[in-house]
């Protein structure tokens, strides 16, 4: 087997060396607690606040609107729980509106808020590609709507949603709007003012930053309560001693993403389009899932194949040296059709045979060619075993 080729950048990305260079000296020399009064604390605080300033600037936000968290999922939790509870406290708002293609960090959290806190949860209608039907959004923006949460770009099917338009409608009614931009932010520039979001989640490891760090943008004045209580770090919204090296690493990684977005997209788009074209042409009984070429992440391809075990296909591909993923794949061998594909109307015959191939800045055209050469046989072998 040749050197394995990594084609799962939507799951995570390798650390950029330039990010490591920023973090290394902080790990080694800057151990102070940013909350401490002495100089050790002050040094750490300086680095922390510089990271906050840099990220705020790159997002079009104010530094005090940036809340550091441990990951995108935590940011989603803080946004949903914190704002839903604050809105109920202040105005009795009891309805949470989400899309059916949200990340589990939103879907499962919303379900728990319904089961344990008595919130009502409504799911927005979407088209076959997972895009929100804007014409019907207004029906969900009611007197008692506590907040709306719609992901900017979907992890599983790559669909981009019309965030600006959703935000505009929410704002006309004074309803807070959250967007999970964990995938989106890795590939497309964000200006929180233009996107009309009140809350926005990011996770560093999707853009060549470290794992274990993320952020939540919270527009000034947005009702929100802390969900992790204790010290007054992060403007009282997240009690925990800040992880300074990881936060500095995230700031650097986002700075690099900001500088290299167009260069990275120019590299990724032709490769993405080649994969989509070839797969649909060469694999019988195949469909592209999610957004069309205009409304899709630049690194993202996702398919379903009829009459195929997606779990097995990913294993076969891995045994041939290609690391991909499947919406139905699970490491415990207990496959279930993905809730996203089911929500989009795919039957189990198709939904169980899903494959996601996501590219990154280090993916070469040769990697893609080798993948495309190997895929038809891998699919045939997986189908024969079914």
């Amino acid at each position, binding site marked *: 087997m040749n050197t394995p080729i990594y084609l799962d950048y939507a799951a995570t990305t390798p650390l950029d060396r330039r990010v490591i260079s920023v973090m290394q000296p902080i790990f080694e020399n800057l151990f102070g607690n940013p909350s401490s009064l002495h100089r050790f604390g002050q040094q750490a605080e300086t680095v922390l606040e510089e990271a906050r300033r840099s990220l705020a600037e790159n997002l079009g936000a104010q530094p005090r609107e940036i809340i550091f968290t441990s990951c995108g999922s935590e940011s989603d939790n803080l946004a949903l729980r914190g704002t839903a509870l604050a809105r109920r406290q202040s105005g009795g708002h009891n309805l949470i509106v989400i899309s059916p293609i949200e990340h589990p960090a939103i879907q499962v959290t919303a379900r728990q808020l319904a089961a344990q806190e008595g919130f009502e949860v409504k799911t927005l209608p979407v088209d076959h590609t997972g895009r929100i039907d804007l014409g019907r959004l207004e029906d969900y923006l009611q007197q008692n709507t506590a907040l709306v949460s719609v992901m900017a770009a979907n992890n599983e099917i790559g669909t981009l949603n019309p965030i600006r338009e959703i935000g505009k409608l929410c704002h006309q009614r004074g309803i807070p709007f959250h967007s999970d931009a964990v995938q989106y932010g890795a590939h497309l520039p964000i200006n929180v003012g233009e996107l009309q979001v009140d809350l926005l989640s990011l996770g560093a490891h999707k853009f060549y930053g470290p794992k274990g760090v993320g952020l939540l943008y919270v527009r000034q004045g947005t009702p929100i309560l802390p969900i992790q209580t204790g010290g007054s770090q992060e403007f009282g919204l997240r009690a925990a001693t800040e992880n300074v090296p990881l936060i500095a690493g995230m700031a650097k990684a986002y700075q690099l993403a900001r500088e290299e977005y167009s260069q990275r997209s120019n590299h990724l788009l032709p490769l993405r389009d080649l994969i989509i074209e070839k797969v649909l042409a060469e694999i019988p009984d195949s469909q592209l899932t999610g957004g069309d070429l205009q409304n899709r992440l630049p690194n993202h391809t996702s398919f379903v194949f009829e009459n195929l075990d997606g779990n097995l296909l990913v294993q076969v591909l891995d045994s041939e040296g290609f690391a991909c993923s499947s919406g139905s794949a699970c490491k*415990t061998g207990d496959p279930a059709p993905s809730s996203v594909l089911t929500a989009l109307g795919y039957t189990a015959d198709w939904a169980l045979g899903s494959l996601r191939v996501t590219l990154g800045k280090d993916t070469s055209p040769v990697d893609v060619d080798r993948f495309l050469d190997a895929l038809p046989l891998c699919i045939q072998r997986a189908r024969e075993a079914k």
Partner: protein
Amino acid sequence: MTTLPAGTRVVVGMSGGVDSSVAAALLKEEGCDVIGVMLRLWSDPGTQNRCCAPDAVVEARQIAGQLEIPFYVMDAKDAFYKGVVEPFINGYTQGITPNPCLRCNRLIRWEFLLSRARALGAEMIATGHYARIEKQPDGLVRLLKHPDQGKDQSYFLHVLTQAELGKTIFPLADLFKPEVRQLARDLALQVAERPDSQDLCFVGQGGNYRKFLRKEAPTAFKPGPILDPEGNQLGEHSGLAFYTIGQRKGLGISSEEPYYVIHKDPASNTLVIGHSVDLGRSEFSTRPVNWISGEAPVKPFHADIKIRYQSRSVPGLVTPLPGQGVKITLTEPLPDVTPGQAAVIYQDQVCLGGGEIRQEEL
């Protein structure tokens, strides 16, 4: 151990236990391109299948990580339910005592795993079984007992065919259990020392198969008459599934001379009991028989017969019957000849094959 070209891709069925872990390690050491696979099997809802419980998955994954081999868990739940669990339930409904491990080996651990191995580009599979495969000059393979007679598992493997055994490696073929344990220690493999279990894997902790059957095969739990061999009613039984041939305890009939279960008749839901003189059968039929050579013998021959995994083998005469069966005549009667269990036929070290012991009298 084997003579495989370096880099041959082999799928090893892994359980996280010491045997399959060492099997994988030995193949890896030999230069094979080893892939570890664990099959996800069905279990009674609310219980965990012992063969693929979450702990076992974590342990096997850990071993695979230590050996630096890929490891995949594959879903075999449907195939296992249809191929193993359903016939088990049906068997009890019909009054026999099926051995699900035999169907599992044939349909799941070989047929299913081989199909998945092919998908992974592997022509060979390996397991941690204690048995030997010998390739003969004519290209055919023979299944032999393991030299560690206490561990020999050929009984469970008599269901395999030439095609299957030809694609199988038993890396533990020449190793005794203490050596296998020592190898695991030498390799610093963090294997779980789980006790060997004879319990059914799919009915949950403790292998309480009666509770499972009560739900799945209710007709096997209908009370009915207990008769003596002459047809006199001695009492009432609480359901045929509670009894196996040769059973002495729990009959609820008091007598100076102990009673044993000698026959179960599902058609009339009757349990027949008798004294030790009535117990024991030396002649029974076995059908269908899997002949490992692929060819059924035409003439009667002498062989050693094993009617349970744990029982010793007994000499007997094997007489081919029309169709796919044989008549087996033992030199001495055995008290626990149990319809549904397998009679496995050996000549010296060679396992020739075997089949299911039939209910009907000859």
